[in-house]
């Protein structure tokens, strides 16, 4: 019962945050409302007894990635006149919703067709650091290493791209 209330609250918050992201004109406000979504998602992860992911969501997503984004937004010192003038924004929104409804309907239909499944009580330590770590380093070792390579590449790429000072000269 308590879990359900929590779920409804987190769900409402995350949806509100997402809507805010779409509607706010200034990216700063959008980023802030996205952070709300992130945090409520972290709460949902906790409800799903994914402890490690809950922590990672807070640290990596809400913490690192979002602060990076906000940092860049502030770094660029975005003024109102820097922002694109989006005259037909609401028109696009309306059109977008119309286009998306079939997709949403379809996916929801798919979801509904999944047999109802009441959450059972999971064993002790499900989603803990140790358990996930074991799975990660036993079954998923190679993909994990590849991901690390990916991060390295991204790092170098970012340095190269952002570091080019005289690109157009």
């Amino acid at each position: 019962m308590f879990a359900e209330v929590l779920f409804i609250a987190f769900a409402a918050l995350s949806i509100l945050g997402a809507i805010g992201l779409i509607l706010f004109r200034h990216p700063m406000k959008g980023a802030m409302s996205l952070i709300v979504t992130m945090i409520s998602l972290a709460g949902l992860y906790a409800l799903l007894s994914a402890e490690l992911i809950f922590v990672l969501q807070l640290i990596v997503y809400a913490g690192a990635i979002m602060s990076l984004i906000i940092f860049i937004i502030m770094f660029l010192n975005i003024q109102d006149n820097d922002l694109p003038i989006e005259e037909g924004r609401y028109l696009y929104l309306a059109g977008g919703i119309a286009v998306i409804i079939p997709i949403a309907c379809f996916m929801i239909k798919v979801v509904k067709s999944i047999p109802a499944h009441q959450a059972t009580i999971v064993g002790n330590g499900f989603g803990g650091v140790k358990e996930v770590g074991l799975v990660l380093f036993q079954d998923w070792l190679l993909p994990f290493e590849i991901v690390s390579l990916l991060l390295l590449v991204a790092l170098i790429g970012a340095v190269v791209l952002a570091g080019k000072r005289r690109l157009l000269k």
Partner: protein
Amino acid sequence: MIQDYLILSVILFCLGILGVISRRNVFTVFMSIELMLNAANLAFITFSRVHESMDGHVMAMMIMAVAAAEAALALAVVILLHKHKGKLDTNVFSLLKG
């Protein structure tokens, strides 16, 4: 119960799509993509819970790593864009015009 989580994931994902296609601000578009990734993560975690297997968690971690890499690159591109064009408009990229 499970379905509710999934439906939430669907809604968030659709809102992400909406953000990508209706906004021209680079940051908003970028953050909408992050939102879609998050929606996917939620679905992973949910299924992981249902099947009581932690492979979903691993997947979610990987997605986070990918998201981080993406963020690094995308933000670098945004900086370049701002530097050269002084704009944050996706419509600046119009070289594909036939």
